[in-house]
């Protein structure tokens, strides 16, 4: 017996099913042979991108708050959400508009939220989904709690939690993975690795070769997927969710994508990254990639594209108009949900919401 032996080994698999030209790199999963399924993914990504452009335009003209664009990252959100069952629960970060839309959050609700109106978090559709988490990574633990609830009630459901590469530096995320591993929780983490956390590049965030391997330390499998390949994203997430619902425990998917936009509308990325880097990454972007694949399979053409763009623009414009026409709530609404019922002991505080008496302007 040698004095030293290998105590553990690990490998991290990387999967890409469609190359940048949209050509299949190998056999595709079953759903990818269903034209309707592929077109649905494509439509969802185009809708996400159209919403994104409109949100930025509204922000630039002072009609929306600071907004986090998902340009170039649509396949991560849409692919992951498309793998979910309706009664799974999504616990998203703030760049997953595509996942929220897929789950049934409306464009109107998204506009309201980013316009600074909390009614946008009261989703009419996915009632159990969490609102986006602005405090980076803090929601990973909520996903562990949701998954534990499913497990305790013996329900065949899973939670899906998405966060960025920057978030993986936070203790919350390490703690969530640890809970998920030690209790075999039905939970899939998707790391939306877009290469940047505002100005901090991925390499300055962690010395680990991959972020997926953070799963290994928690005793759960981790893998990398091309996050600009919506087919690979959906396939990997579907497999992980199926395993989770069947009692097989948690899984980490590191989706490799790229933030083509500034961090938010308040950011100027030219301060810290070169235009050349960004232009080069356009060649990989997910929407054109799936379109080329659809065209190659004879499922899409110029006319279909024009019709879709027309339809999507109209849908988004209509939602934006409805948002702009929605009056703000009355001031006392800010106290409506502080508690289940506003405490009687604090009743006098509500005088704050009375309209200012006439002639007292300061």
């Amino acid at each position, binding site marked *: 017996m040698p004095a030293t032996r290998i105590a553990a080994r690990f490998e991290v698999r990387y999967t890409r099913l469609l190359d940048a030209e949209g050509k299949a790199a190998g056999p595709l999963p079953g759903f990818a042979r269903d034209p309707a399924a592929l077109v649905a993914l494509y439509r969802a990504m185009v809708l996400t991108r159209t919403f994104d452009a409109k949100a930025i335009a509204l922000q630039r003209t002072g009609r929306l708050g600071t907004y986090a664009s998902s340009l170039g990252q649509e396949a991560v959100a849409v692919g992951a959400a498309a793998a979910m069952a309706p009664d799974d629960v999504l616990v998203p970060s703030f760049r997953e508009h595509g996942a929220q839309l897929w789950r049934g959050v409306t464009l109107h609700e998204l506009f309201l939220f980013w316009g600074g109106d909390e009614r946008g978090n009261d989703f009419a559709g996915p009632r159990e989904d969490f609102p986006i988490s602005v405090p980076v990574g803090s929601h990973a633990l909520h996903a562990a709690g949701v998954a534990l609830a499913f497990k305790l009630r013996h329900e065949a459901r899973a939670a899906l939690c998405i966060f960025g590469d920057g978030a993986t530096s936070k203790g919350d995320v390490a703690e969530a993975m640890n809970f998920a591993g030690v209790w075999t929780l039905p939970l899939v983490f998707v790391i939306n690795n877009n290469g940047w956390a505002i100005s901090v590049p991925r390499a300055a965030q962690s010395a680990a070769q991959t972020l997926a391997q953070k799963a290994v330390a928690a005793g759960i499998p981790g893998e990398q997927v091309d996050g600009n390949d919506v087919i690979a994203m959906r396939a990997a997430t579907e497999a992980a969710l199926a395993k989770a619902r069947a009692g097989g425990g948690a899984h980490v998917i590191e989706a490799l994508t790229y933030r083509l936009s500034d961090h938010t509308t*308040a950011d100027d990325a030219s301060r810290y990254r070169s235009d050349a880097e960004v232009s080069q990454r356009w060649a990989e972007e997910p929407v054109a990639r799936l379109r080329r694949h659809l065209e190659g399979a004879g499922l899409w053409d110029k006319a279909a594209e024009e019709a879709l763009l027309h339809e999507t623009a109209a849908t988004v414009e209509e939602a934006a108009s409805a948002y702009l026409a929605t009056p703000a709530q009355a001031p006392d609404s800010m106290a409506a949900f502080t508690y289940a019922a506003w405490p009687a002991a604090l009743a006098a505080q509500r005088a704050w919401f009375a309209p200012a008496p006439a002639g007292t302007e300061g």
Partner: protein
Amino acid sequence: MAALTLVQSVNLALARAMADDPRVLVLGEDVGIDGGVFRATDGLLARFGPERVLDTPLAELGIAGLAVGLAAQGFRPVAEIQFSGFVYPCIDQIMNHAARLRTRTHGRLSCPMVLRMPAGGGIRAVEHHSECPEAMFAHMPGLRVVVPASPARAYGLLLAAIRDPDPVIFLEPTRLYRAVREEVADDGAALPLDRAFSLRPGADITLIAWGGMVPEALAAAETLAAEGIDAGVIDLATLKPLDMETVLAEVARTGRCVIVQEAPVSGGLGAEVAAGIAERGLDQLLAPIRRLAPPDVVVPAPRLETAYLPDAARIAAAARETMAYT
């Protein structure tokens, strides 16, 4: 002398402190090449290099804890938390370690660190970006809590905070970052900590404010002056420890006060000021102490923010009511 905004004064004070003292380090998220999301650390990386200006991984708890270790080792870390809404994970490190390392070791180890962060609302920011956590920190023995309200005071108070031998929480009112310019001399002169600034003498009533509420109180005083009410304004500036002497001296002259607080009313810093006046100044009061602060609600999303924030109009109205008391 240059006319600077508050955020430029913060930048100037940081540069000055780093130039004067090689132990001063700046660390935080995006403080390096990006110069901080508000540009408070702009140019520092280029000038002082990556060993003194550290872009950290995204981890607030980590930043606070790292600063404790650096400070115990003789550095003077000035750590930035990108927004005060993200300081909550740091509480473990601040409460259990930074604030009491000196106590626990009987002075063998200490924690001369500054944790700076933008705080307060009024910038129509997305949720979690408009918090006023000052009272929470002011409740922790061993900390100083400082909130500058003008470019010149930001410069002098930040220098004082960095030179102070104990941990200082330095809350920069986001809404004032670019609100006004003021002549600021880069003379390296610190302002005193633990001292309130009487900004405007008043004969009839004293408006007591800090941070983003100070300009509102000054505007209210202007309005009131036009109506024949002579209102004085105090900027508390250091919230822990509180300079009650200045407050009591002013209130003794006017006999009336309005304490203006941006944070929700219950358990706020205003209650501490009110208690101090009640304990030692009650017999000089001509009217009840008035606290003006929003109800105990979560800071609302931007569309309702103006209905939440105290403003000059509300301050003036509260002052008139206090003046009308008989």
